């Protein structure tokens, strides 16, 4: 259970909605499990290197349709599509 005050809540952003140059800190993962297709995604994101409290920065976006994005996570750079990135909820800084 994540306890967030209304103030913080307004600042939470989905990673998939962020523009290049914006930064933040990962708060939690929120898989849209309604259709079950994303059940495994949070684990996959963790395995490739996403984790709570890590700093993230959107570095680049595809020249075609601005999707996928390249994200700096900690020391790594990871490319992923915005749809999957949306699972990652970020506190903007």
């Amino acid at each position: 259970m994540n306890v967030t005050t209304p103030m913080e809540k307004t600042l939470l952003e989905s990673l998939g909605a962020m523009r290049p140059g914006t930064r933040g800190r990962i708060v939690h993962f929120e898989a849209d499990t309604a259709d079950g297709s994303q059940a495994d995604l949070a684990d996959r994101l963790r395995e490739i290197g996403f984790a709570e409290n890590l700093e993230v920065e959107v570095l680049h976006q595809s020249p075609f349709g601005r999707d996928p994005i390249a994200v700096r996570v900690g020391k790594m750079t990871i490319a992923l599509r915005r749809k999957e990135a949306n699972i990652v909820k970020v506190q903007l800084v």
Partner: protein
Amino acid sequence: MSNSTLVAVVGNPNCGKSALFNALTGLRQKVANYPGATVERRAGPMLGNDEIELIDLPGTYSLTPRSPDEAVTRDVIRGEYHAEGKPQALLCVVDATNLEQHLRFIIELRSSGVPMVLALNMTDLAAREEIRIDAAKLAQKLGVPVIETVAVRKKGLTDLKAALDDVLANPEQSRIDFGTSVKDHQRAARKIAADVTLSEGIGHKTTRVLDGILLNRIAGPIILFGILFFMFQAVFSWAEAPMGWIEDGIAYLQTGLEGQLSEGWLLSFFNDGIIAGVGAVVVFLPQILILFAFILVLESSGYMARAAFLMDRLMASVGLNGRAFIPLLSSFACAIPGIMAARTISDPKDRLTTILIAPLMTCSARLPVYAVIIAAFIPNMPVWGGIGLQGLVMFILYLAGIVFALIVAAVMKRTITKGETQVFMLELPKYQPPHWRYVLVGLYERARIFLRRAGTMIMSATVILWILSTYPNPPVGATEPDITYSFVGIIGGWLEVIFAPIGFNWEISAALVPGMAAREVAVASLGTIYSLSGNEDMIAEGLVHTLNNAWSLPTAFSFLAWFVFAPQCLSTIAVAKRETGGWKWASFMVGYLFVLAYLASFVTYHLSSAILS
């Protein structure tokens, strides 16, 4: 095999497992700078202690496989890989510049109970980034020996071997409870990494700067396109001189033989059969090596993953994944490693589609075919600012392969391989200056394979073809060249009925049959057939001039169109069968390529005939 000790090399993708494996075994496993370079298990005895059998494995983030290559790693570690026993120890590898991320998988592996040694690899890069890690403390926290290594410079190997011997002699390692979920492992990894890291480092500045340019909205795609364009220009212009030397050498050999042997079947066997046939292919060695040099440099620089990123959107529009771009670009070299590399694609349908379109990528065996026709029919003149027309046509042919591959993929994804859109997730590695040793080893391997093929398969194909082109002897009082009355002439005549609508004469039709074995054999066969049927002056000028005289322009274009789709070589069909698990998809692939090749040639022939007349 059975009484040797198995040690599996495991770790995250792109942490240097294959480089370490090569350093320890002296083998030449492919080393490149992108996640997913290794897609198969490969084993070899360790240098200095052949009791130990090392197994190099595809990199993976966890023991929950997301793609077929990762499944191999899990199976080997669990001892479920075919009849192979469980490994007695693991040689785990982590990238010292990304410890907190790589440790998570090591912690997961700790729970498997197999004793391990940890190689803290790439310590040279870590030092350059001013990262300092307390290896002794890391060993203590993990409860396993930790050895600092630089695999590409063979540093730390002695200590590593000693530690392995030690672990194999005393396999009991303390059990530490790190929890069970991915989240638990992640938390433990970050805690340990934080405890043992003395200095955080400054990051890899070059990578940030280069990405700023290479992934730029405008410059990025232009550079990607420019690299490919430059590659094909270079294939033509740089190879010109060395190809001239090889041609001179072949001509010297033929003239030499004419001086040594009297006119007769033996001279014809050597000059028209072996030298005209094999020589027609060997002359393309410089071009193939230049193409490979480009691909090897791209693979070891870290750019491949960026290309996948840039291409993802385009690939998504036909229902594929950016990751598929890496196997497809590898298919420029050869479709076989390209088809194998499709193992890194997690979705079975995406993977199948990628395998089915891989043969449309212009592999290096098609290079001789394109090059010989271009040299014969396209004038060598500059188009604009140092760009040659020949290189431009070559580039267009490669582009045609890519475009049709995407179209075919789009059609397949809407019909036979329909499915959900898949996840694209790819780590973009740090840029590295190419390791020249690996590039040179890669080139040497390629040259060896190419020349061995020329010496074995292509040679035997041309020998058989020479025999079939020489016998039976022509009847007394024959007016046509002798070859017209031979088996090849007769068979070519039958096939011509099928291929005449697309502008192929009987010589081409006959050459297509051995060309099924491998595409470049088609060129070798044309060399032999025309050498036997032509007059002496034409032969002296070489195949290029012969074709220029013998073929009309529409026929040449039609021939090029045929080879854009050309049903692939036998080895590709065999690999496609193995990777798709049966004849069904392999035969489908052959069938659709044949149909497309025929249609494309038909349209090209009639369209260009109409325009040119």
